[in-house]
């Protein structure tokens, strides 16, 4: 936060203790700093003061009557008293009024034991009441499958309503009625439909809003807490897993703690049951002659794997192995996996799920500015004065980064330019484009041309950094020449955005001093992703924002440890660091440390491995936690490739399609059963801690790698995950040594200089050329496989809580298209193209742009067959998120 030291300090006395706090601090906060806790209901540091509960009354000398400390700002020489008898009297009467209507059903109330009202009543009121009148009773209403309300317990503090509006920008809750008969309701006639972030559950000081998922399963004093990191997206939220014995009960977050500062999204708050799904693999499995799996002991399984691996290594050499690991693993595991592949098996064919998109962000960052991380942090987003969001769908993909953007706009009044394929329409979940000062509605396949348009307006409107032309004349001229080849008419026609809107957006962004670009999956996971990111870096350089404090380009990580996977060297092109695979000194150092010779063969990435497997060059694969058979379309022939292998080992939580093909399946632990670290999207390395014992006979992935290496006689032995981390630190000095805030690397001057002089020329011939995929007349709809707020990959579809919010996919359509086709929500619709036809349910949503249909990737098992696979020539990223289809109504729905 921008808190400067020379800010005016105000000195005041609270209960005899004198303290100095910055001007504008609230009395309640100043008191907290000297250790005086003033009881309160409606105050919350995150929300604007409402002063409606009167619980926080204090005496302030020279002021008549008692004052609400939650809304009074400190003043010089103020003398505050909270421990005098008439303040106590006031508290007593406030509580008496609340209790007069309170049901006091604490024995069956899930808040009992951690309830502010309970605590304050114990502290300030007698155990008897003077009221004999009847209590208020609200008719009980069903709220939602995950959130339970008991309005008789409500103290009408409006925290929930304010949180939902001010922080989440969802506005799902509202008070209705007057006085003591005020009741909190949601807007819709049916059950609650919102983002299900759980914020209202957490912020309600009493038991009026509680979680229905854990209803009646626990009492607060039974819970054992484990502070760890959420596994569902790259935001890396700090969560507290609460368990009773070995049963997962709930997830909390803490105000002021973690990168999320106490906020969570639905996946983090309600998604914790995925780890304890009954389908978890409990034992190692070995495939028999008849193709069925038989339960085996760890010894049998590991010995079989070791024997086969040794055999293949002797016969065909290390290059016959391929390894694929999920970026949901911890840093320690990712490091150990690549060490196992490179050191023990001797293969350079290592890749992780960061290949699916995150490398498209990292590679350009490395080549243009020499950093593999963001040059900014979440704090910089909040402090930014201009933000450019491109293809992020931020609410659904990275909800907490989304909250930072919302905070920047709503509290910091930052300029927000959104280039998104969302329409600014109000819906049940928040929509970032509604907050935008400038919104460029762009179809999911048009980001490239829209980015070119934006850069063209910078050049055409003379918004280029004045010094640049002299500093880097070739760069400037070359970019200008490349851009000039695309005409405005073409840009306007294809993107559907007018030249004025581009100019206004470019003006808005260049007028800022702290400007950030946030790039999401819409760019990173679509064809030419790396080129678009490079172009955006050009945009930053042209506008003179590159390398400035609080500025930068930030690619969002989709999986929780995408960033870590790259830094741990679990991608084809990098050794840990990340250092380019060919870097001589690093190879030497690693050879020495690991006591092996590193393989010399060229590295091969995900898709090359499958290609070579089919060609018979890769004989065995080790797939950890990834399910390429399901996540890549059939045209990729992944299944055929895996079937042609001599030996396939899968290390998994569930028997996925890929694991079904394996010869040996090793049961691994989920994030709640192991220790380690995750690196979030902004490069913050955070500790993950074990909350429950491993399910069945499953073991943490790193233990399995370690055990296997021992059986193979090339031991990599570690006592605990922390020992691996120590080794990582010896390879990457200072790794993870950060305070509460991520360190921001600055662009490397020499790399940037090199880029401006000649590096820019690489790929320049193509990266500004806009190619256009025209829809065939019989397949007019662009089908996009998108992220949903309520799921993350397919892991979350095993979580019973999230399934209650969203249990199946639906094809989402714009109302105007739906009308044209005669489709209504709930109808079954046939989606087809040359690859096949799939029938699914339709959902009409205002935020979907015209001519586009979206389907959540988490439920795309059937619809996957309609997609094709494109492989990026440069970054080898497989793209399969967009395709052209036609839609027809098959049957009317029941709704």
């Amino acid at each position, binding site marked *: 936060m921008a808190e400067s030291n020379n800010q005016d300090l105000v000195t005041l006395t609270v209960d005899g203790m004198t303290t100095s706090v910055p001007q504008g601090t609230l009395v309640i906060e100043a008191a907290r700093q000297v250790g005086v806790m003033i009881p309160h209901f409606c105050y919350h540091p995150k929300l604007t003061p409402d002063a409606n509960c009167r619980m926080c009354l204090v005496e302030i000398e020279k002021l008549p009557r008692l004052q609400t400390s939650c809304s009074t700002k400190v003043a010089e020489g103020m003398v505050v008293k909270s421990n005098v008898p008439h303040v106590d009297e006031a508290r007593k009467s406030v509580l008496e009024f609340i209790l007069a209507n309170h049901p006091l059903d604490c024995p*069956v109330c899930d808040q009992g034991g951690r309830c502010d009202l309970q605590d304050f009543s114990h502290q300030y009121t007698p155990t008897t009441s003077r009221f004999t009148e009847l209590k208020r*009773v609200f008719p009980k209403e069903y709220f939602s499958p995950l959130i339970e309300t008991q309005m*008789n317990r409500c103290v009408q503090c409006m925290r929930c309503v304010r949180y939902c509006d001010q922080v989440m920008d969802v506005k799902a809750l509202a008070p209705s009625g007057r006085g003591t008969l005020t009741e909190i309701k949601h807007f819709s006639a049916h059950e609650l439909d919102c983002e299900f972030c759980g914020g209202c559950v957490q912020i309600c000081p009493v038991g009026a809003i509680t979680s*229905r998922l854990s209803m009646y399963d626990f009492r607060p*004093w039974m819970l054992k807490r484990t502070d760890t990191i959420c596994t569902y997206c790259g935001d890396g939220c700090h969560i507290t897993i609460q368990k009773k014995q070995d049963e997962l009960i709930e997830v909390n977050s803490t105000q002021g703690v973690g990168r999320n500062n106490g906020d969570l999204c639905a996946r983090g708050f309600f998604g914790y049951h995925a780890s304890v799904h009954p389908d978890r693999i409990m034992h190692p499995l070995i495939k028999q002659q008849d193709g069925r799996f038989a339960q085996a002991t760890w010894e049998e399984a590991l010995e079989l794997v070791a024997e086969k691996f040794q055999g293949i290594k002797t016969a065909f050499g290390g290059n016959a192995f391929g390894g694929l690991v999920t970026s949901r693993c911890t840093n320690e595991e990712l490091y150990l996996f690549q060490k196992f592949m490179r050191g023990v098996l001797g293969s350079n064919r290592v890749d992780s799920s960061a290949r699916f998109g995150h490398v498209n962000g990292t590679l350009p960052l490395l080549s243009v500015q020499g950093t593999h991380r963001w040059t900014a942090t979440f704090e910089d987003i909040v402090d930014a004065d201009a933000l450019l969001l491109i293809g992020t769908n931020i609410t659904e993909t990275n909800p907490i980064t989304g909250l930072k953007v919302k905070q920047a706009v709503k509290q910091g009044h930052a300029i927000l330019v959104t280039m998104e394929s969302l329409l600014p329409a109000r819906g049940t979940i928040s929509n970032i484009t509604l907050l935008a000062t400038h919104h460029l509605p762009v179809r999911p396949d048009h980001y490239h041309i829209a980015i070119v348009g934006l850069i063209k307006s910078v050049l055409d409107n003379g918004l280029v950094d004045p010094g640049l032309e002299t500093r880097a004349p070739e760069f400037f001229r070359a970019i200008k020449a490349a851009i000039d080849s695309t005409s405005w008419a073409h840009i306007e026609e294809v993107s559907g955005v007018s030249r004025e809107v581009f100019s206004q957006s470019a003006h808005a962004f260049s007028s800022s001093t702290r400007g950030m670009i946030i790039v999401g999956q819409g760019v990173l996971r679509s064809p030419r992703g790396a080129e678009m990111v490079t172009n955006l870096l050009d945009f930053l350089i042209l506008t003179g924002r590159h390398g400035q404090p609080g500025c930068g380009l930030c690619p969002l990580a989709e999986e929780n440890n995408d960033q870590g996977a790259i830094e741990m060297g679990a991608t084809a092109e990098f050794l840990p660091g990340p250092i380019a695979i060919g870097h001589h000194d690093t190879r030497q150092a690693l050879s020495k440390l690991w006591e092996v010779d590193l393989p010399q063969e060229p590295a091969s990435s995900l898709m090359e491995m499958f290609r070579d497997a089919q060609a018979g060059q890769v004989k065995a694969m080790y797939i950890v936690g990834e399910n390429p058979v399901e996540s890549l379309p059939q045209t990729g022939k992944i299944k055929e490739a895996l079937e042609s292998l001599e030996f396939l080992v899968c290390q998994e939580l569930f028997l996925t399609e890929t694991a079904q093909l394996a010869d040996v399946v090793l049961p691994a632990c989920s994030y709640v059963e192991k220790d380690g670290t995750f690196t979030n999207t902004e490069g913050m390395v955070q500790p993950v801690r074990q909350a429950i014992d491993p399910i069945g006979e499953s073991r943490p992935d790193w233990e399995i790698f370690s055990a296997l290496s021992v059986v193979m006689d090339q031991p990599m032995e570690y006592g605990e995950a922390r020992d691996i981390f120590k080794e990582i630190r010896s390879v990457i000095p200072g790794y993870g040594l950060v305070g509460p805030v991520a360190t921001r690397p600055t662009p490397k001057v020499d790399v940037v200089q090199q880029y401006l002089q000649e590096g820019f020329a690489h790929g320049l011939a193509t990266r500004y050329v806009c190619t256009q995929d025209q829809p065939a007349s019989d397949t007019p709809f662009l089908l996009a496989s998108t992220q949903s707020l309520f799921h993350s990959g397919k892991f979350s579809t095993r979580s019973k809580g999230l399934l209650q919010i969203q249990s199946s996919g639906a094809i989402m359509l714009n109302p105007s298209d739906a009308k044209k086709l005669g489709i209504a929500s709930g109808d079954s619709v046939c989606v087809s193209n040359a690859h096949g036809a799939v029938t699914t349910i339709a959902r009409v949503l205002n935020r979907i742009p015209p001519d586009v249909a979206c389907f959540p990737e988490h439920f795309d098992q059937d619809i996957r067959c309609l997609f094709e696979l494109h492989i990026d020539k440069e970054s080898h990223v497989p793209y399969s998120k967009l395709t052209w289809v036609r839609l027809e109504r098959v049957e009317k729905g029941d709704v």
Partner: protein
Amino acid sequence: MKFGEWVKTLIFYEILMGMKATLTHLLHYKPITLQYPHEKKPLPPNYRGMLALLRYDDETEKCVGCDLCEAACPSRVIQVYSAEVPGEPTKRYAKEYYMDMTRCLFCGQCVDACPVDALGMTQEFEWAVYDKRNLQLNKQQLLAIGDRAFPVREKRIEFQHPNVAYFNVSFGDIPQKDA
């Protein structure tokens, strides 16, 4: 030695005096020892004997599964597993309830802690068993003890006062938690 003293010595006067109480007792002898188990001593009404779970007059269980007894018990006798009553949405009860009576010290803290008077201490004390495991009691056993020890039952809490009319009641129009 005086004559008087001599006579006292002769007739063992001190011994007789010492035995006076005993000898008097011998004349109107009344035995104190109870011939247990044929005879039993009446117990005071507040006797703290075997614990029991109680029911309301309509046979429903009183216990709402609040776990307060478990929290109050100094020797960790009690284990409560609470849940929503099947078929009665939003109503809470103890799905499972266990007492390990080998550890109970009959302090009565649990009875005091219970907000709905679902626990009672009976007059039963004859619980010597050959196998300690027979002192691990479950909910059904504890209810059975209550049934035989407390034949007179209270009416349901909802009917006791309008202000508790909505205490732990079920709402039929609401779906079950895990439905």
